[in-house]
């Protein structure tokens, strides 16, 4: 019956399967959801949504679909004030739901308008006026199976309210996320190989069986090298002033890479806007705390995968011209872009992660240099999704 809701959810990017939809229908048939929308909201969410990362998408879709059922907003202040006061329910307050008149939504909204126009004073515990603790269809803290709730502490929040609060916004996958999620993404960066040097420390069962049979049942053990991740990673961080707003994000990525102990090797260096002769060994980029970029080319083989992390936003001269290095007293013979080219030539697997949202790359400050770099490097947003896409790029053989 809500089949359009099903399609709306799918259209909003939730992978709801028919299977799950049938479970929901079964739950409704079993009466697991009383007539309230909030119960329906929770039921739908627990059956249809399988990750907190999707809660937000669900909230949005739910609010979109059921938005007609909101409380009207134009309630006079005075009535709000009456509603804000304490509620005392009369003793033995019980009534069968059947006694209430049935109203549909439009009717309720129309009645509310009239009632507001009529009402001149505070009401509690009655069954007609807007007030608290009664059985009127308007107000709060009372009992009416289908009234319009107005104000008061959220004793029973409406589903639309809950959905439009969007409490789970932070869990969205396309959001910028924390160390742990980066770490999960890094876990995908692995290429197993047993053809590495290293001790043969694992029992090769098939080999052992074969050898033992060949020797007429005398036990012969065969050892093999364990399969290991062969990925070596070189990460270069831009730690320029323009990167300060993203420092937390960069730090999270750094921590994640550092904690991921499945890499065969991990090297991290820092640069200032663009790479030149020197790479810094710490994020403060102080003179002397550096190594020669040449050293990197000589000592780190082309099997290293390179990840640049930077906004790529700088003065065009810093990228394109000789002596463009903005550090006073440092002069570069080779323009920054040529240094980047050398990285590209030496390391066939390279990506650039940019903390600036993709949509802004072609018009934000520094878009000239960003686009120049983007011509050279596959560029991704510095989000979990971006990192995952980048890692895929690093892994495919071209």
């Amino acid at each position, binding site marked *: 019956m809500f089949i359009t809701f099903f399609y709306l959810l799918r259209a909003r990017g939730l992978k709801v399967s028919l299977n799950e939809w049938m479970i929901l229908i079964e*739950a409704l048939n079993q009466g*697991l959801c009383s007539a309230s929308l909030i119960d329906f909201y929770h039921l739908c969410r627990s*059956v249809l949504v399988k990750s907190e990362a999707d809660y937000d998408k669900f909230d949005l879709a739910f609010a979109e679909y059921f938005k007609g059922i909101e409380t009207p907003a134009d309630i006079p202040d005075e009535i709000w004030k009456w509603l804000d006061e304490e509620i005392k329910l009369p003793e033995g307050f019980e009534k069968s739901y059947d006694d209430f008149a049935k109203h549909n939504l439009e009717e309720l909204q129309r009645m509310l308008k009239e009632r507001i126009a009529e009402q001149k004073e505070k009401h509690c515990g009655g069954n007609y006026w807007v007030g608290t603790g009664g059985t009127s269809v308007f107000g709060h803290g009372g009992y009416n199976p289908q009234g319009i709730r107005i104000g008061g502490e959220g004793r029973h929040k409406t589903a639309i309210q809950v959905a439009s609060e969007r409490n789970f916004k932070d869990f969205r996958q396309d959001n910028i996320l924390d160390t742990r999620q980066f770490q999960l993404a890094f876990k995908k960066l692995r290429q197993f190989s047993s053809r590495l040097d290293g001790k043969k420390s694992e029992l090769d069962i098939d080999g052992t069986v074969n050898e033992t049979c060949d020797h007429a049942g005398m036990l012969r053990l065969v050892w093999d090298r364990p399969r290991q991740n062969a990925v070596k990673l070189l990460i270069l961080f831009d730690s320029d002033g323009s990167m300060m707003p993203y420092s*937390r994000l960069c730090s999270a990525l750094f921590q994640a890479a550092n904690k991921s102990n499945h890499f065969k090797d991990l090297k991290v260096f820092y640069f200032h806007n663009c790479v030149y002769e020197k790479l810094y060994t*710490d994020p403060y980029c102080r003179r002397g705390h550096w190594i020669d970029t040449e050293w990197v080319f000589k000592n780190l083989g082309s099997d290293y995968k390179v990840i640049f992390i930077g906004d790529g936003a700088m003065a065009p001269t810093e990228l394109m011209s000789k002596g463009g290095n903005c550090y006073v007293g440092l002069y570069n013979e080779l323009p920054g872009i040529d240094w980047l080219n050398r990285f590209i030539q030496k390391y066939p697997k390279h990506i650039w992660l940019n903390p600036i949202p993709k949509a802004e790359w072609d018009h934000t400050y520094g878009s000239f240099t960003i686009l120049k770099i983007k011509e050279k490097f596959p560029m991704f947003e510095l989000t979990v999704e971006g990192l995952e896409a980048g890692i895929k790029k690093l892994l495919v053989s071209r």
Partner: protein
Amino acid sequence: MNTFKGSKDYVVSDELMHAVNVSIALQKPLLIKGEPGTGKTMLAQSIADALEKKLIVWNIKSTTKAQDGLYLYDTVQRLYDSQFGEGDVSDIGKYIKLGKLGEAFTEEKQVVLLIDEIDKADLEFPNDLLWELDKMEFYVNETKETIKTRIRPIVIITSNAEKELPDAFLRRCIFHYIEFPDAERMKEIIAVHYADIEKNLLAQAMETFYWIRGLKDIQKKPSTSELLDWLQALVHSGIPLAKIKEEIPFVGVLLKKNQDIEAMFEIKEKGFTVKRWI
């Protein structure tokens, strides 16, 4: 019908209660996710207590295989027995040891089965259990027997989101994400554990706790269980109230990382920290 309404030593939110009841009624496993320390594991215990059912816990480790939960065939024991002539070796059934799932399936009465931290295991692990959890039965090759449950157990599965769970598995579950409790609910939780805690102390400690949780530069946020430990430490030490917010005694109970402790004190003093890159 079984309806879960929470138990006296476990504070449960309406949404969670609803999710539990939906999962019981639909006979689908309930998958629980949430920050560490939000009481995921406790939930199963609480359900078992409230519904007066036996709880069977299957703790998953990185080495756990799906087969471990079904049954193990103890070939070594059988070989041993045959050499020393002990017992009837021809009865293979004697050497089939049921795992936790098998145990839950063969119980006479309905049980609560907790599969704890399913994400610890191999990526394929949940897929290997699809059939067993769907049909609640499995086949023992050695004895050519099918072990089938009489009354489907209530299955609770917890996950810390260390690994993504396969879609096929997720489709069969009811899912609930336990949010970190807000101050109001936290008070209820504390009241369950320490009924007679002093009001002012609690207020001070809560304020400090939520302040620390709100700091962006903290990597490992303290959770409920840490707050409970901290409260206990505060009560036992009898530290004057004024000092709680000022000095944050026993900070090691709340924050487990040196960097976090340093960052927190720096923010407290100067209002910001630069210890982000380290």
